[in-house]
Every structure is written in structure tokens, then in C-alpha cells.
């Protein structure tokens, strides 16, 4: 809390911007920019998803230094996947992990206890107690989130634990943003500005510290083009996503989508697996799908998965 004022002043101060831009046009203040040899950037380190099939869908996992969004309706497995990522990050790099602890930011601390209890039930790799390596914080508002992220710089630089912090999970970013803003033009504009600031900070940290940033997001229902006519602009944004028989899109719209690198969409639909025997109840199976909507390194693709007591696992379907 101590350095809140200083940090928010430095990002907000509009007077400092015009001056510096004018200077930089006249003479660059920085040392000469040097191109980075691309071969040094190969192979790109990634965080495994904790299941070989799911990891393969992402060509190894979530790329370090980028922001990944996991979106889906409630009970689609978002949190479960996040927990698995947290566990996976504890593993050493040669096992697909980051050898690192994680920072978990939640909209409020209350539901986290159940989340963390679930985590403690998961089989832990390497006999590390995962709860010792998670830093939990709650963010009530976008400003609060921003402040936490600035404070997290110190956590990245020097972790209080044995392992450095290299994974940031922001749980339900929409919940953090939703409460604050009215649906008018001015507020929407400042909301967009806040998206960019939060995303820029997250990406800056991801890149500077070699971290993976995961953000979970809710979905909103989409009115189909046949309903809304030409005005339904969402169908421009991409092929429609379906979950539970509804047409949905990740919340927070286009400007947020501009801020992320990878979008993963989890969907579920209940389907009748087998008719009930002699008039009994039909057995309903939940079919879950994980879809890579876009990613910098893999084409759009999808795969079915199941949630078991011991984690999230991809299914290999014979075609």
C-alpha cells in the first residue's frame, strides 16, 4: 500500500508524455536499438498444461512472455485448468514446467478457499506442497488490480519463497472490471484505457521476468445475426462459439481481445450418451471441448477433454 501514490502517478501523469515524445523526435535518448537475433529465441519456452494431449494442442503449452485467456461459461473447467497450470509451473523446465511459484489474483478472497482446497486435493508433483508456492491476492477494482501488479514487481524480482514467481493467474478478469463501469460512452472509453494499461503491465512483466500470464474470462450470450440483422456486429469478430447450446462470446469485447495473445475457449454440452434401460433415466454425459480460438504459434484447433478427480485430461479421439 505504501507506494500506491507514486506508482499510479507515474503511469497517469499526462504532462510527462508530450514532452518526452517531442524530445524523442528530435534526438533518440535511448542507446541505439539493436536487432535481436531470432535464433536466440528458439525454442520458445512454454508452460505445459499438465496433460500431453492438451499440451500438444498448443504445441507444448502456453508460451512464456505472453498473455493467455481461458474463457468459458461457469463450470466449464476454467478454474480447474488454472489449478493444473499452477501445479505444472512447479515442475522443472525439462518436465514442461517453469520451476516457479505462482501469483493468483482473485476478485474476492472468499471463494478462493474452496479453490485452494481443491488444489490441495490434486496429486502434487515432486512431493512439493503446492500451497506453499502460491501467493494469493484479491483485487476489488481495476485500480486495485493495477496497484497489485505494481507491487508484484518486487515479488518477481525477489521471491520470498524458494522458487521465483513466474506464473500469474488473474481469475475472472471480467468480474474485476464489471462492477466498476456504467454502460455509457465515457465509462466505456475509460474502461478500454484501463484494459490497455492492465494488459500492458501484465505483458511487460511477462516479458521482463519470463513469466506466463493466464487470465480467465466469462462468456456472454450473443444474439445471432439472424436475430439482430446486420447490426449484430459480433459475427464479424470470429466464427461463433457454442456452449450448452447457446451462442456465446468471451466477455469484455473487442478492445480486450486486442490485449491478449492466445485465447482458449472451454465449452460444455450435455448429450445423451445412452438411452435409459426400460424407461429409466437417460444417461447424460457432459461433452467438454477445449478450443484454441487463436494463438500466435498454432492454428485454430480443438480437442475434447474430461475433468477427473486428479485433473484435466485431453481425450484422443480416433477418427
Amino acid at each position: 500500500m505504501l507506494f500506491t501514490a507514486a506508482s499510479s502517478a507515474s503511469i497517469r501523469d499526462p504532462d510527462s508524455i508530450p514532452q518526452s515524445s517531442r524530445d524523442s523526435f528530435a534526438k533518440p535518448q535511448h542507446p541505439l536499438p539493436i536487432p535481436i537475433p531470432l535464433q536466440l529465441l528458439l525454442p520458445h519456452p512454454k508452460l505445459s498444461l499438465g496433460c500431453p494431449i492438451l499440451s500438444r494442442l498448443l504445441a507444448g503449452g502456453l508460451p512464456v512472455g505472453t498473455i493467455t485467456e481461458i474463457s468459458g461459461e461457469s463450470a466449464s473447467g476454467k478454474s480447474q485448468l488454472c489449478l493444473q497450470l499452477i501445479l505444472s509451473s512447479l515442475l522443472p523446465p525439462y518436465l514442461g514446467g517453469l520451476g516457479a511459484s505462482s501469483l493468483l489474483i482473485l476478485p474476492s478472497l472468499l471463494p478462493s478457499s474452496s479453490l485452494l482446497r481443491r488444489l490441495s486435493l490434486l496429486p502434487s508433483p515432486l512431493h512439493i506442497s503446492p500451497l506453499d508456492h502460491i501467493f494469493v491476492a484479491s483485487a476489488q477494482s481495476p485500480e486495485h488490480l493495477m496497484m497489485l501488479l505494481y507491487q508484484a514487481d518486487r515479488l518477481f524480482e525477489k521471491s520470498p519463497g524458494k522458487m521465483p514467481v513466474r506464473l500469474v493467474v488473474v481469475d475472472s478478469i471480467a468480474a474485476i472490471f464489471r462492477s466498476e463501469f456504467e454502460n455509457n460512452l465515457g465509462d466505456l472509453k475509460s474502461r478500454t484505457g484501463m484494459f490497455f494499461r492492465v494488459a500492458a503491465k501484465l505483458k511487460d512483466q511477462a516479458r521482463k521476468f519470463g513469466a506466463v500470464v493466464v487470465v480467465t474470462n466469462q462468456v456472454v450470450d450473443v444474439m445471432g445475426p439472424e436475430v439482430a440483422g446486420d447490426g449484430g456486429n459480433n459475427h464479424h469478430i470470429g466464427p461463433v462459439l457454442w456452449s450448452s447450446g447457446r451462442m456465446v462470446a468471451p466477455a469484455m469485447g473487442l478492445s480486450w481481445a486486442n490485449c491478449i495473445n492466445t485465447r482458449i475457449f472451454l465449452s460444455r454440452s450435455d448429450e445423451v450418451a445412452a438411452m435409459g434401460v426400460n424407461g429409466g433415466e437417460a444417461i447424460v454425459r457432459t461433452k467438454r471441448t477445449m478450443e484454441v480460438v487463436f494463438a500466435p504459434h498454432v492454428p485454430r484447433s480443438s480437442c475434447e477433454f474430461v475433468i477427473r478427480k486428479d485433473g484435466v485430461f485431453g481425450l484422443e479421439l480416433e477418427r
Partner: protein
Amino acid sequence: MEISNLPISPSLRSKLLAKGYTNLSSLSPLSPSILAQELSIQCEEAIEILRAIPHATTSKNAYTPHGIIPGAVTAWDMLSEEQMQRHISTGCNDLDTILGGGIHCKEVTEVGGVPGIGKTQLGIQLAVNVQIPVEYGGLGGKAVYIVDTEGSFMAERAYQIAEGCISDILDIFPSNSREFLSCKERLRANNFLDGIFYFRICSYTEQIAVINYLENFLTQNKDVKLVIIDSVTFHFRQDFDDLAQRTRVLGGLSLRLMKLSKTFNLAVVLLNQVTTKFTDGSFQLTLALGDSWSHSCTNRIILHWNGNERCAYIEKSPSLPSASAPYLVTGKGIRGINSNFKRARTMPS
């Protein structure tokens, strides 16, 4: 143009030649006083020499009687030069066709689209395709790739696309042909990666600094034929509260880029985000950074979804009709719908 053709007195001419000035271009940046000192002549004489230069430059085009203003060229010259130019292929035949052969040098092209549509993929593809050796119908140039905070550029992906490009070249040109042997060495994915000068920037101040520095960099690396800025938008959308200020800074930026593209005969490709704009009672997608920015690029291409199909649409071009073409993003990079369709489907994910 040689010094020997300069309409000046023979004594001055011999003095110039004695000092090693053989070419007019070596003379033009000099001021009269420096020249006078150098040749140990009167200042007036130096002025006389320098005055003679622009006059002489126009008579360079002696075969075309239109050279009235220094440096002017006729439309005919421009046309024939343009027809000589090779273009950078996008990898998708349909898109190349509507673009008149591909991305043009000496022009600034802006590409925009929704997240995930393949802007960065197109950028990487162009950075790879610009390096296709001349023997294989490419430009044999190099690329500068400037990535900001938003850009999703990954070296790994560039490597894949380079490999895809190489395997397509080898499909078209059988490996036993003579051409292949002559540039076998160059056709390696690693060499393609080395041909991409990758700059990373974290703020718009750095963005401006890099673009200012480019002139220097390009003078030293004359074989660069393509400059890609992966998202001009990100920092300009977040850091500015004063829109008038932003417009001025962006205006300066686009002028510089235009100048670079003309001076160094290279293509500049800017990737931009889209935003929604409220017109005629409904929200329409449009490229970010506003109306005044929209004048700063020669061409604008919008990538959009048409149902489940990716489409590229030419929104603005001085020479091409508006048209749209479908394209695919495959494991190998940007490809057309028809060509390589089968292979595209079976790419491992």
C-alpha cells in the same frame, strides 16, 4: 552524372577531379565554403560549381524532354519502373491477384483486422517471402520486424513458416534443377530467420526512436526490402489522453515511414487493430487510430471473418479496385483456399 559533363570552366573541373570528386552525388551535400576551402578556390567559384549541379541533374534525362524541375521524372518512367518492380507475395494467390501481384515496394500498406484473424501471421509470412531468392521469383531481400508490447510475433512460428515456404519452393522447382543447386545454401530456415531484423519496443517513445534510427540502419543494410511494424496501435491507444497531440505524433511517424519507403525502395507494412465505430445507427468495424491516420497509408487491407472463412478486403488503394479474397492460415503460413488445400488440412496442430 559525371563531373566531366558539368558545365563549368575546365580549370575548375580539373581541380574537382584532382581532389577526387568524380560523381555529382559526392558534391551535392557540400556547402560553398567547404568546397572553396577544399579546392582552394574563391567562394564565388564554388557557388558557381554548385549552381551548375541541379541544372546538370535535369539534363540527365536528356532523352526525355520533360525534366524541367530537378529530380522530376515522367509518368512514363514511373510506369516502366513500376512494371519492373517485383512484389512481395503474400503466400495466397487470390490475395496476390487482387493486390496486383503482392505487397508493393515504395508504398505504405496498412493491414488491420480483429484479434486472431492472422495479422501477425501475414506479417511473418511477408518477412519470410521477401527473402525468397531472385532465382525463385522473389526479391531476395531482408526484413525489419518491429514488435511492440501487443505483437504476438514468435521466432518459433517464423521458423515454421520459413520451412513451409522452402518446401513450397522445392515443390515448384524440382531439386535437381540447376537453379536449385546454385542457391541451395541459402534455402535454409535458419538463414531466413537471420534475414529478419527483429526489434522489440516497450513504449511509444521507443517506437519513435526505432523509426528515427531506421534511416541509419537501412543505409547500412541496403538489402532490406520490407519494414513491418507489428501493431502501430498499442502504445498510441493506451498512452495518449490528448488526441490532438497523438494525431501530430502519428502524422510525423507516417511521413517518416513514407519517406523511408521511397528513399530505400522498400515496402512498409503496418499492422493495426480494429475498433468499432458508430455510423448510421449501427456499429461498424474500422481500423483504429482515427480518420486523420487513415490518410497516412497508401493502401489499406482489412482482414475479416466471413462466416467461418477468413477474407482480405482492399479498402483503400490508389491503383487497385476494391476487392476481397479468401485466405487460410495453415501450419505453413498464409495460403490460398484452392492451392495446397489438401495439405493445409492435414497439417499437424
